[in-house]
Protein backbone atom coordinates (compact mmCIF):
# COMPACT_ATOMS: atom_id res chain seq x y z
CA UNK A 1 0.00 0.00 0.00
CA UNK A 2 1.35 3.35 -1.03
CA UNK A 3 1.65 5.36 2.15
CA UNK A 4 1.66 8.71 0.46
CA UNK A 5 -1.75 8.02 -1.07
CA UNK A 6 -3.49 9.77 1.69
CA UNK A 7 -6.57 7.86 2.78
CA UNK A 8 -4.77 5.97 5.49
CA UNK A 9 -7.85 5.64 7.59
CA UNK A 10 -7.20 5.34 11.31
CA UNK A 11 -10.15 3.02 11.67
CA UNK A 12 -8.94 0.34 9.29
CA UNK A 13 -7.17 -2.76 10.57
CA UNK A 14 -4.91 -2.34 13.54
CA UNK A 15 -6.36 -3.32 16.87
CA UNK A 16 -5.12 -0.25 18.76
CA UNK A 17 -7.49 1.83 16.77
CA UNK A 18 -10.65 -0.11 17.42
CA UNK A 19 -11.68 1.78 20.53
CA UNK A 20 -10.72 5.07 18.90
CA UNK A 21 -13.62 5.13 16.49
CA UNK A 22 -15.62 7.22 18.89
CA UNK A 23 -12.92 9.89 18.95
CA UNK A 24 -14.33 12.00 16.09
CA UNK A 25 -17.79 11.84 17.65
CA UNK A 26 -16.34 12.98 20.97
CA UNK A 27 -14.49 15.77 19.21
CA UNK A 28 -17.68 16.91 17.50
CA UNK A 29 -20.05 16.44 20.41
CA UNK A 30 -19.86 19.95 21.91
CA UNK A 31 -20.28 21.53 18.48
CA UNK A 32 -23.26 19.35 17.67
CA UNK A 33 -24.96 20.05 20.99
CA UNK A 34 -24.52 23.80 20.51
CA UNK A 35 -25.67 23.71 16.89
CA UNK A 36 -28.70 21.71 17.84
CA UNK A 37 -29.58 24.03 20.73
CA UNK A 38 -28.90 27.39 19.13
CA UNK A 39 -29.44 26.83 15.40
CA UNK A 40 -31.48 23.77 14.45
CA UNK A 41 -34.06 23.63 17.24
CA UNK A 42 -34.56 27.44 17.09
CA UNK A 43 -35.15 27.24 13.35
CA UNK A 44 -38.00 24.76 13.71
CA UNK A 45 -39.29 26.43 16.85
CA UNK A 46 -39.35 29.76 15.03
CA UNK A 47 -41.28 28.12 12.23
CA UNK A 48 -43.83 26.88 14.74
CA UNK A 49 -44.02 30.16 16.65
CA UNK A 50 -45.02 31.96 13.46
CA UNK A 51 -48.42 30.29 13.77
CA UNK A 52 -48.98 31.29 17.38
CA UNK A 53 -49.86 34.27 19.48
CA UNK A 54 -47.20 34.60 22.16
CA UNK A 55 -47.13 37.71 24.35
CA UNK A 56 -44.27 36.21 26.40
CA UNK A 57 -46.07 36.31 29.75
CA UNK A 58 -48.65 33.77 28.63
CA UNK A 59 -47.87 30.50 26.89
CA UNK A 60 -48.03 30.48 23.07
CA UNK A 61 -51.48 29.87 21.59
CA UNK A 62 -51.98 28.37 18.12
CA UNK A 63 -53.79 30.81 15.84
CA UNK A 64 -53.16 29.29 12.42
CA UNK A 65 -52.46 31.78 9.67
CA UNK A 66 -53.67 34.76 11.68
CA UNK A 67 -50.19 36.35 11.90
CA UNK A 68 -49.79 36.19 8.14
CA UNK A 69 -53.24 37.65 7.58
CA UNK A 70 -52.26 40.47 9.91
CA UNK A 71 -49.02 40.95 7.98
CA UNK A 72 -50.98 41.49 4.78
CA UNK A 73 -52.87 44.39 6.40
CA UNK A 74 -49.90 45.84 8.27
CA UNK A 75 -48.65 49.02 6.57
CA UNK A 76 -45.45 48.89 8.65
CA UNK A 77 -44.70 45.42 7.28
CA UNK A 78 -45.16 46.62 3.71
CA UNK A 79 -42.94 49.61 4.42
CA UNK A 80 -40.28 47.28 5.90
CA UNK A 81 -40.51 44.94 2.95
CA UNK A 82 -40.32 47.79 0.45
CA UNK A 83 -37.41 49.46 2.25
CA UNK A 84 -35.52 46.19 2.50
CA UNK A 85 -35.98 45.65 -1.24
CA UNK A 86 -34.92 49.22 -2.04
CA UNK A 87 -31.94 48.74 0.21
CA UNK A 88 -30.91 45.54 -1.56
CA UNK A 89 -31.41 47.02 -5.03
CA UNK A 90 -29.74 50.27 -4.05
CA UNK A 91 -26.66 48.88 -2.33
CA UNK A 92 -25.76 45.56 -3.96
CA UNK A 93 -24.92 46.84 -7.48
CA UNK A 94 -22.82 49.82 -6.30
CA UNK A 95 -20.84 47.81 -3.80
CA UNK A 96 -20.08 45.15 -6.40
CA UNK A 97 -19.31 47.58 -9.22
CA UNK A 98 -17.18 49.86 -7.05
CA UNK A 99 -15.45 46.91 -5.44
CA UNK A 100 -14.69 45.53 -8.89
CA UNK A 101 -13.37 48.83 -10.23
CA UNK A 102 -11.13 49.35 -7.21
CA UNK A 103 -9.87 45.77 -7.53
CA UNK A 104 -9.10 46.29 -11.23
CA UNK A 105 -7.16 49.45 -10.46
CA UNK A 106 -5.34 47.85 -7.55
CA UNK A 107 -4.49 44.75 -9.53
CA UNK A 108 -1.66 46.61 -11.28
CA UNK A 109 1.81 46.87 -9.85
CA UNK A 110 1.56 50.38 -8.43
CA UNK A 111 3.33 52.23 -5.69
CA UNK A 112 1.66 52.03 -2.28
CA UNK A 113 -0.63 49.19 -3.29
CA UNK A 114 -0.74 47.59 0.14
CA UNK A 115 -1.42 50.89 1.87
CA UNK A 116 -4.28 51.68 -0.53
CA UNK A 117 -5.70 48.22 -0.09
CA UNK A 118 -5.61 48.65 3.69
CA UNK A 119 -7.38 52.01 3.39
CA UNK A 120 -10.19 50.46 1.38
CA UNK A 121 -10.47 47.50 3.67
CA UNK A 122 -10.50 49.11 7.09
CA UNK A 123 -14.19 50.19 7.00
CA UNK A 124 -15.10 46.51 6.56
CA UNK A 125 -13.79 45.50 9.97
CA UNK A 126 -14.59 48.71 11.84
CA UNK A 127 -17.50 48.17 14.28
CA UNK A 128 -20.81 48.83 12.57
CA UNK A 129 -22.23 50.69 15.57
CA UNK A 130 -19.21 52.99 15.75
CA UNK A 131 -19.28 53.86 12.07
CA UNK A 132 -23.05 54.34 12.17
CA UNK A 133 -22.63 56.87 14.99
CA UNK A 134 -19.87 58.51 12.97
CA UNK A 135 -21.97 58.80 9.82
CA UNK A 136 -24.94 60.00 11.81
CA UNK A 137 -22.79 62.94 12.89
CA UNK A 138 -21.47 63.47 9.37
CA UNK A 139 -25.03 63.45 8.00
CA UNK A 140 -26.23 66.01 10.57
CA UNK A 141 -28.36 68.51 8.68
CA UNK A 142 -27.02 71.69 10.26
CA UNK A 143 -23.50 70.89 11.37
CA UNK A 144 -22.55 67.69 9.55
CA UNK A 145 -19.45 67.73 7.41
CA UNK A 146 -21.32 66.46 4.35
CA UNK A 147 -23.73 69.38 4.26
CA UNK A 148 -20.85 71.76 5.01
CA UNK A 149 -19.13 70.48 1.89
CA UNK A 150 -22.34 70.88 -0.12
CA UNK A 151 -22.68 74.44 1.15
CA UNK A 152 -19.08 75.22 0.27
CA UNK A 153 -19.69 74.27 -3.34
CA UNK A 154 -22.91 76.29 -3.34
CA UNK A 155 -25.52 73.56 -2.97
CA UNK A 156 -28.42 73.58 -0.55
CA UNK A 157 -28.01 71.40 2.55
CA UNK A 158 -29.86 68.09 2.41
CA UNK A 159 -31.91 66.95 5.46
CA UNK A 160 -30.27 63.52 5.22
CA UNK A 161 -31.58 61.71 8.27
CA UNK A 162 -34.50 63.94 9.19
CA UNK A 163 -36.50 63.65 5.99
CA UNK A 164 -38.26 60.50 4.91
CA UNK A 165 -37.17 61.32 1.37
CA UNK A 166 -33.42 61.01 2.01
CA UNK A 167 -33.01 58.88 5.13
CA UNK A 168 -32.86 55.53 3.37
CA UNK A 169 -30.43 56.90 0.80
CA UNK A 170 -28.17 58.14 3.58
CA UNK A 171 -28.17 54.71 5.21
CA UNK A 172 -27.40 53.14 1.83
CA UNK A 173 -24.47 55.47 1.16
CA UNK A 174 -22.93 54.54 4.49
CA UNK A 175 -23.48 50.82 3.86
CA UNK A 176 -21.88 50.94 0.42
CA UNK A 177 -18.88 52.74 1.90
CA UNK A 178 -18.60 50.03 4.54
CA UNK A 179 -18.60 47.10 2.13
CA UNK A 180 -16.63 48.19 -0.95
CA UNK A 181 -13.44 46.85 0.65
CA UNK A 182 -14.87 43.39 1.14
CA UNK A 183 -15.86 43.11 -2.51
CA UNK A 184 -12.48 44.49 -3.51
CA UNK A 185 -10.66 41.72 -1.65
CA UNK A 186 -12.87 39.03 -3.12
CA UNK A 187 -12.39 40.36 -6.66
CA UNK A 188 -8.65 40.81 -6.19
CA UNK A 189 -8.43 37.12 -5.31
CA UNK A 190 -10.34 36.30 -8.48
CA UNK A 191 -8.20 38.57 -10.64
CA UNK A 192 -5.01 37.06 -9.32
CA UNK A 193 -6.30 33.65 -10.27
CA UNK A 194 -6.52 34.56 -13.97
CA UNK A 195 -3.49 33.40 -15.92
CA UNK A 196 -1.59 36.30 -17.58
CA UNK A 197 -1.26 34.19 -20.72
CA UNK A 198 -4.86 35.01 -21.69
CA UNK A 199 -4.06 38.70 -21.75
CA UNK A 200 -0.82 38.13 -23.64
CA UNK A 201 -2.67 36.19 -26.30
CA UNK A 202 -5.35 38.87 -26.55
CA UNK A 203 -2.75 41.61 -26.88
CA UNK A 204 -1.08 39.80 -29.75
CA UNK A 205 -4.49 39.72 -31.41
CA UNK A 206 -4.68 43.49 -30.90
CA UNK A 207 -7.26 43.69 -28.14
CA UNK A 208 -7.32 46.92 -26.13
CA UNK A 209 -7.66 47.01 -22.37
CA UNK A 210 -11.44 47.52 -22.45
CA UNK A 211 -11.82 44.47 -24.67
CA UNK A 212 -9.54 42.50 -22.37
CA UNK A 213 -11.72 43.41 -19.39
CA UNK A 214 -14.95 42.74 -21.23
CA UNK A 215 -14.07 39.47 -22.96
CA UNK A 216 -11.50 37.90 -20.63
CA UNK A 217 -11.74 39.27 -17.10
CA UNK A 218 -15.51 39.46 -16.76
CA UNK A 219 -16.37 35.99 -18.11
CA UNK A 220 -13.62 34.36 -16.07
CA UNK A 221 -14.71 36.19 -12.95
CA UNK A 222 -18.32 35.11 -13.28
CA UNK A 223 -18.17 32.60 -10.39
CA UNK A 224 -16.62 35.25 -8.15
CA UNK A 225 -19.27 37.78 -9.18
CA UNK A 226 -21.88 35.19 -8.30
CA UNK A 227 -20.34 34.63 -4.91
CA UNK A 228 -20.11 38.36 -4.17
CA UNK A 229 -23.67 38.89 -5.39
CA UNK A 230 -25.15 36.15 -3.24
CA UNK A 231 -23.29 37.11 -0.10
CA UNK A 232 -23.92 40.85 -0.60
CA UNK A 233 -27.63 40.27 -1.19
CA UNK A 234 -28.00 38.04 1.83
CA UNK A 235 -26.12 40.49 4.02
CA UNK A 236 -28.16 43.42 2.71
CA UNK A 237 -31.43 41.71 3.45
CA UNK A 238 -30.38 41.48 7.09
CA UNK A 239 -29.59 45.18 7.53
CA UNK A 240 -30.18 46.26 11.11
CA UNK A 241 -27.45 48.12 13.04
CA UNK A 242 -27.16 51.06 10.63
CA UNK A 243 -30.89 51.67 10.76
CA UNK A 244 -31.16 51.11 14.50
CA UNK A 245 -28.43 53.67 15.20
CA UNK A 246 -28.83 56.24 12.44
CA UNK A 247 -32.60 56.57 12.10
CA UNK A 248 -34.32 54.12 14.43
CA UNK A 249 -36.50 53.15 11.45
CA UNK A 250 -37.78 56.68 10.90
CA UNK A 251 -38.68 59.33 10.08
CA UNK A 252 -42.11 57.73 10.02
CA UNK A 253 -41.36 54.23 8.80
CA UNK A 254 -39.19 55.43 5.95
CA UNK A 255 -36.15 53.37 6.95
CA UNK A 256 -37.89 50.52 8.77
CA UNK A 257 -36.45 47.21 7.55
CA UNK A 258 -37.56 43.64 8.13
CA UNK A 259 -34.99 42.86 10.82
CA UNK A 260 -35.72 46.18 12.49
CA UNK A 261 -39.39 45.23 12.57
CA UNK A 262 -38.60 41.78 13.96
CA UNK A 263 -36.63 43.51 16.71
CA UNK A 264 -39.46 45.94 17.44
CA UNK A 265 -42.21 43.33 17.46
CA UNK A 266 -40.25 40.89 19.59
CA UNK A 267 -38.38 43.04 22.05
CA UNK A 268 -40.43 46.20 22.27
CA UNK A 269 -44.01 44.98 21.82
CA UNK A 270 -43.24 41.41 23.02
CA UNK A 271 -45.21 39.83 20.20
CA UNK A 272 -43.04 36.76 19.74
CA UNK A 273 -45.41 35.01 17.34
CA UNK A 274 -45.80 37.99 15.06
CA UNK A 275 -42.04 38.62 15.10
CA UNK A 276 -41.47 34.98 14.11
CA UNK A 277 -43.84 35.36 11.18
CA UNK A 278 -41.81 38.35 9.92
CA UNK A 279 -38.58 36.36 10.44
CA UNK A 280 -40.06 33.62 8.30
CA UNK A 281 -40.75 36.07 5.48
CA UNK A 282 -37.17 37.30 5.75
CA UNK A 283 -35.86 33.75 5.61
CA UNK A 284 -37.98 32.99 2.55
CA UNK A 285 -36.68 36.10 0.79
CA UNK A 286 -33.06 35.20 1.50
CA UNK A 287 -33.57 31.67 0.18
CA UNK A 288 -35.44 32.73 -2.96
CA UNK A 289 -32.83 35.37 -3.80
CA UNK A 290 -29.96 32.91 -3.41
CA UNK A 291 -31.68 30.32 -5.60
CA UNK A 292 -32.50 32.86 -8.35
CA UNK A 293 -28.99 34.21 -8.42
CA UNK A 294 -27.36 30.80 -8.48
CA UNK A 295 -29.64 29.72 -11.28
CA UNK A 296 -29.26 32.82 -13.41
CA UNK A 297 -25.53 33.29 -13.09
CA UNK A 298 -24.87 29.57 -12.91
CA UNK A 299 -26.46 29.03 -16.35
CA UNK A 300 -24.55 31.87 -17.93
CA UNK A 301 -21.21 30.28 -17.03
CA UNK A 302 -21.99 27.35 -19.31
CA UNK A 303 -22.04 29.51 -22.43
Amino acid sequence: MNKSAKSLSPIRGSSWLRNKQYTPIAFLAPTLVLLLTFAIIPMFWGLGLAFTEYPLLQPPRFIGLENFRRLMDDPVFWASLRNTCYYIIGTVPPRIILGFVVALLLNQAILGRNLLRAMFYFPVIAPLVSVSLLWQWMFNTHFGVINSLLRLIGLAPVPWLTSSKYALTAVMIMSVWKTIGWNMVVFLAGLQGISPSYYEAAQIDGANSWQCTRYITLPLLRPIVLLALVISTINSSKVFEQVYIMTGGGPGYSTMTLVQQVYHSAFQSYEMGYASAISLVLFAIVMVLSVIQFKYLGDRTDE
Partner: protein
Amino acid sequence: MNRIGTFSNGKVKVLGRYLAYTLLICTAITTIFPFFWMVSTALKPDNELYRFPPNLVPKKVMWSNLSKAWSSGPFNRYLFNTVLITIITTSITLLLSSLGGVAFGKYKFPGQKILFAAILGVMMIPPQVTLVPNYLILRGLRALNTYWGVIAVSVVNPFGIFLVRQYMQSIPDELMDAARIDGCSEWMTFWRILLPLMKPVLGTLAIFSFTDNWNSFMWPLIIMDRQEMYTLQVGLAFFRGQHMAYPNLLMAVNVVAIIPVLVVFLLFQKYFVQGIQLTGLKG
Protein backbone atom coordinates in the same frame (compact mmCIF):
# COMPACT_ATOMS: atom_id res chain seq x y z
CA MET B 1 1.61 45.99 -35.41
CA ASN B 2 3.44 49.04 -36.76
CA ARG B 3 5.71 51.21 -34.69
CA ILE B 4 3.53 54.32 -34.67
CA GLY B 5 0.63 52.24 -33.43
CA THR B 6 2.60 50.86 -30.52
CA PHE B 7 3.94 54.29 -29.70
CA SER B 8 0.59 56.04 -29.40
CA ASN B 9 -0.82 52.99 -27.69
CA GLY B 10 1.96 53.29 -25.11
CA LYS B 11 1.23 56.99 -24.61
CA VAL B 12 -2.46 56.30 -24.02
CA LYS B 13 -1.43 53.62 -21.58
CA VAL B 14 0.77 55.97 -19.56
CA LEU B 15 -1.98 58.61 -19.50
CA GLY B 16 -4.55 56.02 -18.52
CA ARG B 17 -2.27 54.85 -15.79
CA TYR B 18 -1.95 58.31 -14.26
CA LEU B 19 -5.67 58.78 -14.51
CA ALA B 20 -6.32 55.46 -12.80
CA TYR B 21 -3.79 56.24 -10.11
CA THR B 22 -5.33 59.65 -9.39
CA LEU B 23 -8.80 58.15 -9.28
CA LEU B 24 -7.61 55.44 -6.93
CA ILE B 25 -5.95 57.85 -4.52
CA CYS B 26 -8.99 60.14 -4.49
CA THR B 27 -11.31 57.23 -3.71
CA ALA B 28 -8.97 55.94 -1.03
CA ILE B 29 -8.88 59.36 0.65
CA THR B 30 -12.67 59.58 0.51
CA THR B 31 -12.88 56.13 2.04
CA ILE B 32 -10.62 56.98 4.94
CA PHE B 33 -11.92 60.53 5.47
CA PRO B 34 -14.74 59.55 7.91
CA PHE B 35 -12.15 58.11 10.29
CA PHE B 36 -10.10 61.27 10.05
CA TRP B 37 -13.24 63.24 10.79
CA MET B 38 -14.00 61.07 13.77
CA VAL B 39 -10.61 61.78 15.33
CA SER B 40 -10.82 65.46 14.45
CA THR B 41 -14.29 65.81 16.01
CA ALA B 42 -13.19 63.87 19.08
CA LEU B 43 -10.44 66.39 19.78
CA LYS B 44 -12.47 69.57 19.23
CA PRO B 45 -13.58 71.87 22.06
CA ASP B 46 -17.35 72.36 22.31
CA ASN B 47 -17.25 75.79 20.63
CA GLU B 48 -15.67 74.42 17.46
CA LEU B 49 -18.32 71.79 16.85
CA TYR B 50 -21.06 73.94 15.39
CA ARG B 51 -19.07 76.19 13.10
CA PHE B 52 -19.31 76.86 9.38
CA PRO B 53 -17.11 76.16 7.61
CA PRO B 54 -15.89 73.49 10.02
CA ASN B 55 -12.21 73.36 10.94
CA LEU B 56 -10.60 70.39 9.29
CA VAL B 57 -8.22 70.08 12.23
CA PRO B 58 -9.21 71.47 15.65
CA LYS B 59 -7.69 74.89 16.39
CA LYS B 60 -7.34 73.88 19.98
CA VAL B 61 -6.66 70.18 20.44
CA MET B 62 -8.56 68.87 23.44
CA TRP B 63 -6.83 65.67 24.48
CA SER B 64 -8.82 65.90 27.68
CA ASN B 65 -11.97 65.03 25.72
CA LEU B 66 -10.84 61.41 25.65
CA SER B 67 -10.66 60.99 29.42
CA LYS B 68 -13.67 63.25 29.99
CA ALA B 69 -15.82 61.16 27.64
CA TRP B 70 -14.55 57.87 29.00
CA SER B 71 -15.38 58.82 32.56
CA SER B 72 -18.87 60.13 31.76
CA GLY B 73 -20.26 56.59 31.56
CA PRO B 74 -19.33 53.17 32.97
CA PHE B 75 -17.05 52.57 30.00
CA ASN B 76 -14.48 50.64 32.02
CA ARG B 77 -17.20 48.17 32.84
CA TYR B 78 -18.34 48.00 29.19
CA LEU B 79 -14.74 47.46 28.12
CA PHE B 80 -14.28 44.73 30.70
CA ASN B 81 -17.45 42.97 29.51
CA THR B 82 -16.41 43.20 25.88
CA VAL B 83 -12.87 41.97 26.52
CA LEU B 84 -14.11 39.07 28.63
CA ILE B 85 -16.75 37.99 26.12
CA THR B 86 -14.38 38.39 23.19
CA ILE B 87 -11.56 36.40 24.79
CA ILE B 88 -13.72 33.54 26.03
CA THR B 89 -15.72 33.30 22.80
CA THR B 90 -12.62 33.40 20.61
CA SER B 91 -10.85 30.73 22.68
CA ILE B 92 -13.82 28.37 22.64
CA THR B 93 -14.37 29.00 18.92
CA LEU B 94 -10.75 28.07 18.22
CA LEU B 95 -10.98 24.90 20.29
CA LEU B 96 -14.31 23.76 18.83
CA SER B 97 -13.26 24.56 15.28
CA SER B 98 -9.97 22.72 15.55
CA LEU B 99 -11.63 19.68 17.15
CA GLY B 100 -14.36 19.70 14.51
CA GLY B 101 -11.93 20.28 11.67
CA VAL B 102 -9.76 17.37 12.82
CA ALA B 103 -12.77 15.09 13.19
CA PHE B 104 -13.77 15.79 9.58
CA GLY B 105 -10.31 16.06 8.08
CA LYS B 106 -8.39 13.31 9.85
CA TYR B 107 -10.92 10.65 10.81
CA LYS B 108 -13.44 8.53 9.01
CA PHE B 109 -16.79 7.71 10.50
CA PRO B 110 -20.23 6.71 9.24
CA GLY B 111 -22.42 9.65 8.23
CA GLN B 112 -19.41 11.96 7.99
CA LYS B 113 -20.31 13.52 4.66
CA ILE B 114 -23.92 14.17 5.60
CA LEU B 115 -22.93 15.67 8.94
CA PHE B 116 -20.40 17.97 7.29
CA ALA B 117 -22.95 19.12 4.73
CA ALA B 118 -25.45 19.70 7.53
CA ILE B 119 -23.00 21.86 9.45
CA LEU B 120 -22.25 23.92 6.37
CA GLY B 121 -25.98 24.16 5.72
CA VAL B 122 -26.51 25.64 9.17
CA MET B 123 -24.22 28.44 8.09
CA MET B 124 -26.95 29.44 5.62
CA ILE B 125 -29.52 30.12 8.35
CA PRO B 126 -29.45 33.85 9.00
CA PRO B 127 -29.10 34.42 12.76
CA GLN B 128 -31.79 37.10 12.46
CA VAL B 129 -34.27 34.33 11.70
CA THR B 130 -33.53 32.49 14.95
CA LEU B 131 -33.45 35.63 17.07
CA VAL B 132 -36.77 35.07 18.80
CA PRO B 133 -36.44 31.34 19.57
CA ASN B 134 -32.85 31.80 20.72
CA TYR B 135 -33.95 34.54 23.07
CA LEU B 136 -36.64 32.24 24.43
CA ILE B 137 -34.15 29.38 24.88
CA LEU B 138 -31.72 31.57 26.80
CA ARG B 139 -34.58 32.93 28.86
CA GLY B 140 -35.56 29.36 29.67
CA LEU B 141 -31.95 28.58 30.64
CA ARG B 142 -31.94 31.73 32.82
CA ALA B 143 -29.04 33.02 30.78
CA LEU B 144 -30.39 36.51 30.05
CA ASN B 145 -28.04 39.18 31.36
CA THR B 146 -25.17 36.68 31.60
CA TYR B 147 -21.92 36.45 29.70
CA TRP B 148 -22.73 32.84 28.83
CA GLY B 149 -25.87 33.94 27.07
CA VAL B 150 -23.83 35.94 24.59
CA ILE B 151 -21.02 33.41 24.38
CA ALA B 152 -23.06 30.23 23.87
CA VAL B 153 -24.77 31.55 20.76
CA SER B 154 -21.58 32.89 19.16
CA VAL B 155 -19.03 30.10 19.72
CA VAL B 156 -20.03 27.65 17.03
CA ASN B 157 -18.45 28.70 13.79
CA PRO B 158 -19.04 26.37 10.82
CA PHE B 159 -16.66 28.57 8.83
CA GLY B 160 -13.90 27.71 11.32
CA ILE B 161 -14.57 23.98 11.11
CA PHE B 162 -14.46 24.22 7.33
CA LEU B 163 -11.19 26.16 7.41
CA VAL B 164 -9.45 23.71 9.75
CA ARG B 165 -10.71 20.70 7.80
CA GLN B 166 -9.28 22.05 4.55
CA TYR B 167 -5.99 22.68 6.28
CA MET B 168 -5.89 19.26 7.94
CA GLN B 169 -6.18 17.50 4.62
CA SER B 170 -2.74 18.79 3.68
CA ILE B 171 -1.13 17.28 6.79
CA PRO B 172 0.15 13.70 6.41
CA ASP B 173 -1.51 10.96 8.50
CA GLU B 174 1.91 9.52 9.32
CA LEU B 175 2.39 12.23 11.93
CA MET B 176 -0.62 11.00 13.86
CA ASP B 177 0.35 7.35 13.41
CA ALA B 178 3.83 8.03 14.75
CA ALA B 179 2.39 9.75 17.81
CA ARG B 180 0.02 6.83 18.42
CA ILE B 181 2.81 4.29 18.17
CA ASP B 182 4.69 6.34 20.76
CA GLY B 183 1.69 5.81 23.03
CA CYS B 184 -0.15 9.09 22.66
CA SER B 185 -3.88 8.98 23.24
CA GLU B 186 -6.12 10.51 20.58
CA TRP B 187 -6.59 13.59 22.72
CA MET B 188 -2.82 13.93 23.26
CA THR B 189 -2.22 13.50 19.53
CA PHE B 190 -4.64 16.31 18.90
CA TRP B 191 -3.27 18.57 21.63
CA ARG B 192 0.46 17.93 21.18
CA ILE B 193 0.83 17.17 17.49
CA LEU B 194 -2.04 18.61 15.45
CA LEU B 195 -2.86 21.79 17.34
CA PRO B 196 0.64 23.30 17.01
CA LEU B 197 0.56 22.57 13.29
CA MET B 198 -2.64 24.55 12.89
CA LYS B 199 -1.16 27.85 13.97
CA PRO B 200 -1.56 29.69 10.65
CA VAL B 201 -5.18 28.71 10.16
CA LEU B 202 -6.04 29.34 13.80
CA GLY B 203 -4.43 32.76 13.49
CA THR B 204 -6.77 33.69 10.66
CA LEU B 205 -9.73 32.33 12.57
CA ALA B 206 -8.72 34.14 15.77
CA ILE B 207 -8.63 37.58 14.19
CA PHE B 208 -12.00 37.06 12.50
CA SER B 209 -13.50 35.81 15.72
CA PHE B 210 -11.97 38.71 17.62
CA THR B 211 -13.41 41.38 15.32
CA ASP B 212 -16.79 39.63 15.03
CA ASN B 213 -17.20 39.49 18.79
CA TRP B 214 -15.73 42.89 19.49
CA ASN B 215 -18.10 44.46 16.96
CA SER B 216 -21.11 42.34 17.82
CA PHE B 217 -24.18 44.40 18.67
CA MET B 218 -27.55 42.82 18.05
CA TRP B 219 -27.25 39.80 20.29
CA PRO B 220 -25.76 41.58 23.35
CA LEU B 221 -28.41 44.29 22.83
CA ILE B 222 -31.16 41.72 23.14
CA ILE B 223 -29.65 39.58 25.90
CA MET B 224 -28.35 42.32 28.18
CA ASP B 225 -30.87 44.75 29.61
CA ARG B 226 -28.94 45.57 32.77
CA GLN B 227 -26.54 48.41 32.13
CA GLU B 228 -23.62 46.82 33.95
CA MET B 229 -23.75 43.93 31.48
CA TYR B 230 -23.62 46.11 28.34
CA THR B 231 -20.77 45.58 25.91
CA LEU B 232 -18.84 48.51 24.50
CA GLN B 233 -20.96 48.66 21.34
CA VAL B 234 -24.25 48.53 23.25
CA GLY B 235 -22.86 51.06 25.72
CA LEU B 236 -21.92 53.37 22.85
CA ALA B 237 -25.43 53.26 21.44
CA PHE B 238 -26.82 53.97 24.91
CA PHE B 239 -24.34 56.82 25.50
CA ARG B 240 -25.42 58.36 22.18
CA GLY B 241 -28.94 58.71 23.55
CA GLN B 242 -27.70 60.76 26.50
CA HIS B 243 -25.02 62.88 24.84
CA MET B 244 -26.60 63.77 21.52
CA ALA B 245 -25.42 67.38 21.84
CA TYR B 246 -21.76 66.47 22.40
CA PRO B 247 -20.56 64.75 19.24
CA ASN B 248 -16.97 65.39 20.36
CA LEU B 249 -17.44 63.20 23.45
CA LEU B 250 -19.32 60.59 21.46
CA MET B 251 -16.56 60.45 18.85
CA ALA B 252 -13.97 60.33 21.61
CA VAL B 253 -15.37 57.09 23.05
CA ASN B 254 -15.83 55.90 19.49
CA VAL B 255 -12.12 56.38 18.83
CA VAL B 256 -11.22 54.37 21.92
CA ALA B 257 -13.64 51.59 20.87
CA ILE B 258 -12.16 51.38 17.37
CA ILE B 259 -8.48 51.45 18.39
CA PRO B 260 -8.22 47.75 19.37
CA VAL B 261 -9.74 46.75 16.03
CA LEU B 262 -7.35 49.06 14.21
CA VAL B 263 -4.34 47.62 16.04
CA VAL B 264 -5.35 44.04 15.30
CA PHE B 265 -5.99 45.02 11.69
CA LEU B 266 -2.60 46.68 11.24
CA LEU B 267 -0.77 43.78 12.84
CA PHE B 268 -2.58 40.99 11.02
CA GLN B 269 -3.76 42.64 7.80
CA LYS B 270 -2.32 39.83 5.73
CA TYR B 271 -4.43 37.21 7.53
CA PHE B 272 -7.67 39.11 6.98
CA VAL B 273 -7.09 39.18 3.27
CA GLN B 274 -6.00 35.53 3.22
CA GLY B 275 -9.00 34.47 5.26
CA ILE B 276 -11.47 36.03 2.88
CA GLN B 277 -9.68 34.77 -0.17
CA LEU B 278 -9.45 31.28 1.26
CA THR B 279 -13.18 30.77 1.36
CA GLY B 280 -14.91 33.93 0.31
CA LEU B 281 -17.41 33.07 2.97
CA LYS B 282 -16.64 35.55 5.65
CA GLY B 283 -18.06 39.04 5.44
